[in-house]
């Protein structure tokens, strides 16, 4: 069994029914057991246990993104999510930005949103907005008013700064807030957008509940997130080796326990959502990682390499020495499991090292 560790990327889409519609369209799920899927158990019981650690998790997430956002932006630009590629294609890192935009467009298309900007959503919430890449893109595309929330003060500040710099301050605004307690009234948004943030949510039920609460009647909810494979009918939980592997990744990325696509579907169905669709987009995001490894020649690619090295090294917990002899990084070590970061000088610039890298390090 390959232990390649690309997370299953699942897309969920729902339409909220108008209050008077009572019939429900059953969701059409294409969930596959994939050989490349990482898995860990995420039963509701496991999620309950995580609740105790939520405060620490939130703080960890905020700090992680506070520390690493700048570097990430340096390398990837303002979109902090996977690109969407043709399966089995060979891509280079320079294709990444176009692929990230394609990811947004593919998600919109999957959700059945109109290509016609005049028919698109007018008010959007970006849940887990990062530095606001999606929001600004949607604001431009649909001339919509977008509001983003993130746990990271650094990200919120940067997102607002970028919006101002791009003349979008009146259309895209960002604040620090918890996705589990969104600071918005019920039914405010036509489009509820969660692009690769769901994996951080310790309470999936609360997360989905909030997404639905702030959605207006007839609104669209789009969730692109990492899930583990659906369990077979005979299975109570994932295999021990799957749990172990995913646990290591969770520790590195400040992720609570994962759930499956079916778990999300059940939550959405319980909230009477209509037209629930899901898809497994693993093949479309998989080309991202080999490209990163192959092209990791500069500091600009380093963090992405490190993240993928963390993952591809069988769950990311070894120390990897990276040699660079061109006045950039000379030596670097990577390990899983967070601890306070430290600063490393690269090409004359001091950069904060992401929290994922520091477990075996002494305090500097």
């Amino acid at each position, binding site marked *: 069994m390959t232990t390649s560790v690309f997370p299953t990327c699942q897309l969920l889409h729902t339409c909220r029914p108008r209050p008077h519609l009572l019939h429900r369209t059953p969701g059409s799920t294409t969930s596959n057991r994939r050989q490349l899927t990482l898995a860990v158990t995420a039963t509701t019981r496991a999620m309950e246990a995580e609740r105790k650690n939520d405060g620490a998790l939130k703080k960890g997430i905020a700090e992680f993104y506070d520390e690493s956002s700048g570097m990430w932006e340096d390398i990837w630009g303002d979109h902090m999510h996977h690109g969407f590629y043709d399966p089995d294609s060979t891509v280079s890192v320079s294709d990444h930005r176009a692929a990230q935009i394609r990811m947004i467009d593919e998600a919109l298309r999957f959700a059945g949103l109109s290509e016609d900007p005049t028919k698109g959503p007018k008010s959007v919430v970006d849940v887990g907005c990062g530095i606001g890449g999606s929001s600004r893109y949607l604001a431009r595309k649909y001339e919509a008013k977008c509001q983003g929330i993130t746990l990271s003060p650094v990200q919120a500040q940067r997102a607002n700064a970028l919006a101002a710099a791009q003349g979008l301050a009146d259309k895209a605004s960002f604040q620090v807030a918890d996705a589990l307690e969104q600071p918005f009234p019920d039914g405010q948004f036509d489009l509820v957008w969660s692009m690769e943030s769901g994996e951080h949510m310790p309470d999936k039920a609360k997360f989905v509940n909030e997404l639905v609460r702030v959605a207006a009647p007839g609104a669209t909810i789009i969730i692109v997130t990492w899930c583990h494979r659906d369990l077979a009918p005979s299975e109570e939980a994932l295999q021990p080796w799957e749990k172990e592997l995913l646990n290591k990744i969770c520790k590195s990325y400040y992720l609570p326990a994962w759930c499956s696509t079916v778990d999300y579907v059940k939550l959405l169905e319980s909230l009477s959502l209509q037209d629930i669709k899901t898809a497994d987009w693993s093949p479309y995001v998989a080309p991202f990682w080999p490209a990163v490894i192959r092209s990791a020649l500069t500091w600009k690619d380093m963090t992405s390499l490190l993240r993928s090295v963390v993952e591809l090294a069988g769950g990311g*917990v*070894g*120390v*990897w*020495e990276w040699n660079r*002899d*061109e*006045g950039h990084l*000379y*030596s670097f*070590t990577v*390990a*899983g*499991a967070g*601890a306070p970061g430290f600063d490393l*000088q690269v090409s*004359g610039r*001091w950069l904060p090292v992401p929290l994922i890298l520091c*477990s*075996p*390090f*002494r305090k*500097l």
Partner: protein
Amino acid sequence: MKLLTHNMLSSNIKGVANGFPLRIEVEKATEKQVELNAGFLRNVFPMIEWKALVDAAQLPEVADSSMLDSDFLNKFHHALLELHLEKDALVCPETARRFPVSQGTPNMLLLEDEV
């Protein structure tokens, strides 16, 4: 594994008060040439735990950044970046737990009961 790396690593096993520096058990040490970057060396110098580097390589016992011209810079560079330890292990100074190094890569993964 470069001594730069060794200078950054610590045994963070639960219960260990001071896991730095790790003791080095080395089977083979080679030298690899690395182009000297004075700016990098000057900037990384204050981060280095000098005694640990001295013990691992042959360097003057006392050093400060005013020494970073000429000959000393070369020595510092050589020790930090050009000495490569292969087929070695790093050993926790308190518990004697071995962290194996293979192909220059130390595996600092802690076991579940060490965390």
